[in-house]
């Protein structure tokens, strides 16, 4: 058995935008109505198969959303290689809060941090007049700030694994060998070499 590489990812965003629900959907495939508010920090892990020979364990830190606990937040995002900032598409304020988080993360952890932006509760978009945030505008903002943006629905499961997977892929690409351990000692890859995005594949493989 090989130990997968791993990275720390923190979930941030205003309260009740669905951070814990995204985490629960991602890690366990479940959804719960009226899930209790997160107090303090919660921690979940989930292993992703990035490609044929890369697995990554995501160590997901779920945090309390309310601004009151803001000063505890640095304790949670310290050392995180990635973040998923979440807002609620039916709540415009939650987007401005999300933007504040992005700013804070960029200040604290720098440009290297991979940040995903999830517009959650996309399932409510179909209900008339529920949507308060225009996806195209957010997409532009995301482009300007190097964010991986998707609208998600933790309730229906839409785009949940996709956004986590995209963030994980970028983490894998960005930090090829040092912090992320590739599986060791298993089988040599059957394919000669992964294609294209192979900055994550160390050359040592080919020596075998």
């Amino acid at each position, binding site marked *: *058995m090989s130990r997968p590489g791993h990275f720390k990812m923190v979930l941030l965003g205003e309260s009740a935008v669905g951070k814990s629900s995204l985490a629960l959907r991602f890690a366990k495939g479940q959804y719960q109505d009226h899930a209790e508010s997160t*107090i303090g920090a919660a921690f979940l892990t989930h292993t992703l198969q990035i490609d044929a020979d890369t697995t990554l364990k995501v160590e997901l830190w779920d945090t309390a959303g*309310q601004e009151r606990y803001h000063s505890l937040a640095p304790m*949670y995002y310290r050392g995180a290689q990635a973040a998923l900032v979440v807002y609620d598409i039916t709540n415009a304020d939650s987007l401005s809060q999300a933007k504040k988080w992005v700013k804070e993360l960029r200040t604290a952890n720098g440009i290297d941090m991979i940040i995903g932006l999830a517009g959650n509760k996309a399932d409510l978009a179909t209900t008339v007049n529920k949507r308060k945030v225009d996806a195209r505008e957010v997409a532009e903002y995301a482009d300007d700030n190097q964010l991986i943006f998707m609208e998600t629905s933790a309730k229906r499961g839409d785009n949940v694994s996709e956004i986590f997977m995209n963030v994980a892929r970028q983490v894998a690409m960005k930090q090829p060998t040092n912090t992320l351990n590739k599986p060791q000692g298993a089988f040599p890859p059957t394919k000669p070499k992964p294609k294209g995005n192979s900055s994550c594949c160390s050359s040592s493989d080919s020596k075998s």
Partner: protein
Amino acid sequence: MSSLYKKISSAPTTPINNQRSSPPKHSVTSIIRLASNLLTHRASPIGVPSTTSSLLKNKCPPLDGEIIFSKNNICVHPPSRLHSYTLHHPGYLCIKCQHDPQFGSTLILTWIPNSTLKNRSNTSQQSSISDEASSPSIDTNADPPPTSTPRHSLSRTIDSGYHTTNSNLLLSPIEQDNQSVRRHSSDDKYEDALDDKSYIRQESVTSDLTEGPDEILGEPDDDEAFEHIDTHDQSSNYVIDHSLPFMKETEPWKNATGVHKPDSSINEDDEAIRTVSEQFCGVFSVDLGKMRSLRLFYCDDASTTASGSGQLVIASCESQYKVLHFHNGGLDRLIEILNEWNLFAYEKTRRGFANCYQFNVVRPSIDSSDLHPEEGCYHLITNDNWRMCMNSSGQIEDNHQLRKTIFFAGIDPSIANEVWPFLLHLYPFDSTFEQREQIRHNKYLHYQKIRARREAAINDPEEAQFFRDVEAIIEKDVVRTDRSHPYFKGDDNPNLRVMKEILMNYAAYCPTMGYNQGMSDLLAPILTVIQNDSDTFWCFVGLMNRTIFISTPTDDVMEKQLRYLRELLLLMLPLFHDHCAKLPDGLDLLFAHRWILLCFKREFPGHEALRMWEACWSHYQTDYFHLFICISIMAVYGDDIVQQNLGTDDMLLHFNSLAMHMSGSIVLKKARSLLYKFRLLQRIPCCLHDISVLAGPGNWDSHHVPQIYCICTTDQEKERCPFSGLCM
């Protein structure tokens, strides 16, 4: 029509219960048992003592497909922490040996919910199956009589004795065993099940390894019980091959070798209609050889549980946890089994098979020498002794004694609504009946004013905005606070509106505090106890004013709590402190944030958490009793962390996974003992000086005055510290 099992007694140290597993036996069985008992019953945690490895020479590892442990009525509890009561999902647990190409052999642990067994059992008799992933198929029909059965042949009898649950069958294993009813016709059984009035039906599942006559010396009861099984016409019993084919339709049994997430296998259609707890309580099957750790937590609360009861906590290498509850004992036996297994695993490790499997035993217990000397001297405040606390005009004359009693023994829930208003400062202890009526009346009027003022605020744009913001957060939180509690259950429950109203009024009453997340969690139990909006409001105000759980807008208070906690930890539990200190960010004590913010509400089941609240509210000798409870949790449940050298993340996971599974009574006892020890200290650091300001001297003339030494390091701190210059 029915016959009773004889009472089964196995090893003398194993409590009698409905566990009927037998280890592989040899002529040296008794020696090994003795050795295992030595191993298991005194040492904690259990390693692999070298003295026992010689035993291996005389003992073969279990054979492929051999069931080495099985027990029914092992519970899984749904994950929701909202429950003030526990939902039990009993099931059948078995551990069997299986050949593993990588490690030689391994153990497969499987838990099957009784509901599945029950539903399926009607159609599953007499099947013999091949289980592609694991053992070779064993045709039970072909089994020769037990006396000549080779030891790897299994004859399993799932005996569905449906019992009517009188009160709580989960807690009456012995009875159940004695009454275990064997029926001859499965149709009978099914009808009977349908007639059963109680909705919880227990199936007592027994399983035995067949044994040769020379191997059962010393256990005549087992022998008889076993023969008894086989004197029955097998066709009328559920004789089921171990691979339990009827499970295949719902769960991919084939996956037994890997980590098997209970939800992952449910097909898409089913998933939509299953609730989270149903998903959670599906079949669970894992390869123990591939787990990161197994921990056995004893809850030795002898008064309420069978001995050997507790939890088995399984952690995967991905740090996923599964908790299985042994309410009817059985942990002792499991430890024996695992110990034997550890010996083999150890041998394998020596031969170069690395494997992450390890297990240890946590017996949260306190030596009697470690208890507070006054532990056990006080009794629960009941209606009778509550009345006796008051004089004829209703004054409580000795509030110190009352608070002390509450601190040690707590309050009977039936009178909590009368006592809490005193603890929460709505009424002074020395008020008379008439005064209290007056206070209540005045407070009611005051409350109405606050409400009216808030409602009028709509005219002021600034204030209106404030209340809109507050309302938005409160609305989000109220609908997700304690929703499984009967008092808040159901859509459009009017009590949710009351909760929201009180929180809104509190924000109006104390706008600097406004609304903090977590307040709804603190308010909900008060509302369920007091049940009147004005009284609840004022009790809540009292809680917010005098207690220290909640953060101010600047989080200073939380920082202060953590500072105290670190210092207390250093004083009371230096090893744990050292462990945290050497980790990056370890002293942030992230795992304790929720403990402090919600005063353990999400760490312990409702009644136990409230007992802790009451102990804290009694302000007996300290205002920071909750910090002693924090230390106590680390003392009782944290050895593992230090021994396994767990990192920051894993510490959080460790304690999160234990939430709702810890023994509140043991933690409280330990906390009281820690407070006692703290009070005996001759010298304390300057930052802990304020730890008992509000509690006052009690009925003594003077405060507790230990010598104080200054630990301030920076000049700024030293300047502010009244004790600077007093060195260690």
